[in-house]
């Protein structure tokens, strides 16, 4: 069963990757390429977030901090130093992400459960406040516009493949991590933290490790987004961004590795269709969140698999 499940999700990954690879080859508009880039970047963000929540059981409400950190590292380098500093900005952002997530991680994992969630939210809002107020450095509420990657990356299609390559490699790495002994340990941290010391492992250390890893990939997603939208805004650091990535994960299903990616795609497509027609997008996603939490806590992919298992066992009964 485990084996077949793994084949199923590998097949999903290959088909999805091929699908994204041919997007620019078909007769697509710049807008559709942008939409596909958004799905890729948010998909990476959601999958990295779910390593924390779905796998390890740490519901962070502050991942926007790292997403924004990535975007602002690129944006600030381009704004203050020059357009050629796009890629170095990405690297600096990733290094900063490791340092900051280590420091904040050491503080927030000392408290468990709900407190972890609440404190990550508080740190996220702190970062937002600083970015919002530090007008002459960050541009405050104006954000930063005109962020264009230099050289060959300035081409839309090249940048799309650049994004696709980074997202694919990152998701492959996260998938490897999730299936490694470390991944098993992380599930143990979620399901039975009291037993973790019996394995000679430390709950806190495992939590800190995955926190840093998850934040690293959230930052990476942020750096990519700076080049997709060519502009960044303080909203990327606001708590609603953290809420959105949670909604994507829970919509897709937090119990499956690719669930959050599916959720990200679904939310971005829905936002494209519904968001343009209503100013009450928050009301819509609020109700959506309520419906999922109350009625479909396993998410789209989780419910689909449950249905498939049920059908398979029904057919088994009919046949036997």
């Amino acid at each position: 069963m485990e084996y077949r499940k793994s084949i199923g999700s590998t097949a999903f990954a290959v088909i999805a990757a091929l699908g994204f690879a041919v997007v620019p080859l078909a007769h697509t508009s710049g807008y559709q390429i942008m939409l596909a880039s958004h799905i890729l970047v948010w998909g990476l963000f959601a999958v990295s977030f779910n390593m924390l929540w779905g796998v390890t059981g740490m519901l962070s409400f502050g991942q926007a901090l790292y997403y924004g950190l990535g975007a602002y590292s690129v944006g600030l380098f381009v704004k203050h130093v020059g357009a050629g500093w796009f890629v170095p900005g990405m690297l600096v952002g990733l290094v900063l992400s490791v340092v900051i997530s280590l420091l904040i991680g050491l503080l927030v994992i000392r408290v468990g459960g709900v407190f972890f969630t609440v404190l990550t939210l508080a740190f996220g809002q702190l970062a937002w406040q600083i970015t919002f107020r530090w007008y002459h450095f960050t541009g405050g509420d104006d954000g930063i516009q005109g962020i264009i990657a230099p050289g060959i990356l300035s081409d839309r299609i090249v940048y799309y493949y650049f994004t696709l390559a980074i997202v694919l490699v990152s998701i492959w790495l996260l998938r490897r991590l999730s299936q490694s002994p470390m991944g098993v340990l992380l599930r143990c941290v979620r399901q039975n933290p009291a037993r973790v010391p019996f394995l000679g492992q430390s709950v806190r250390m495992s939590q800190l490790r995955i926190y840093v890893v998850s934040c690293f990939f959230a930052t990476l997603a942020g750096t990519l987004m700076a080049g997709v939208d060519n502009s960044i805004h303080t909203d990327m650091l606001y708590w609603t961004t953290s809420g959105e990535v949670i909604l994507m994960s829970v919509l897709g299903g937090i119990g499956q590795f690719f669930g959050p990616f599916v959720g990200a795609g679904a939310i971005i497509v829905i936002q494209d269709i519904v968001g343009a027609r209503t100013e009450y997008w928050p009301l819509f996603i609020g109700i959506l969140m309520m419906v999922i939490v109350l009625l479909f806590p396993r998410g789209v992919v989780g419910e689909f698999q449950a249905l498939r298992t049920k059908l398979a066992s029904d057919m088994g009964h009919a046949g036997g």
Partner: protein
Amino acid sequence: MDFSFIIIQFISGLTMATLLFLVASGLTLIFGVGNVFNFAHGSFYMLGAYFAYEAVSSLHTNFWVGILIAAGGAGLAGILAESLFLKRIYGRSEEGGFQLLLTYSFILVIDDLVKIIWGTEYKSLLRPAGFHGSLEIMGLTLPLYNIAIIAIGLIVVVIAWFTLTHTRPGRVARATALDRETMAAMGVNVPLTMTLVFGIATALGGFAGALAAPLRSVTPGAGIEVIIDSLIVVVVGGMGNFWGAWLGALILGEVMAFAVAIIPEWASVVSYLVMVLVLIFKPEGLFSPRQLRTV
């Protein structure tokens, strides 16, 4: 920095502390009794402000009646939210995360409903008759309405303390916080207790929002600022700890009042620094007993 400046900022800090305490005590009460962290608590605060505005501007009630209507309305909204939605997911595995998400969805829904009903523009509520002026003591000018808020806050603290320690409902609430199963076995209607506690706590939040409305303008989105400040209060004071919430509110209110006067641009950042310091040195909160550390 002369003496009168210090006194005036101190009074302003006490006003802030009182409002923070009214919100944070409700938050801590819900957490203590029901083990639910109500992300949407700030939204009930905001609802209180709008209810008071509506009562005074269209029902033409007296200001103080409007405040009571606001508290009642917010409490009723809280009871509805708890009994229609939250109640359904008590006891589900990994309950904490989903409860948070449900209360998060309340924020989104309440915020937008407020925008639909009242629009996005600022609303203002005038101070009640007789509280426009200020009090002159020893050459100091103290705004009367702030003094009134502080006095009301003290009365609420005393009533809450008395209810929690000297009355049967208070004892039931505290006992439920300690052991739900035993209370149920003793014939206490635990689900009803949780609903009532939720209602009282959200009423306190709405009461605070209504009281604060003449000082701050009433806008949608006020809920999130308030919830962040009150969660800093409960982190500083210790979660689920009534007196901790009071002292946490006092500390944060005063720190914010002086920060606003000295470094207005960065005042909001200072309150987070208080939280970070507490987290570094005493993560369980200043006024909670030190807990055993796990590995």
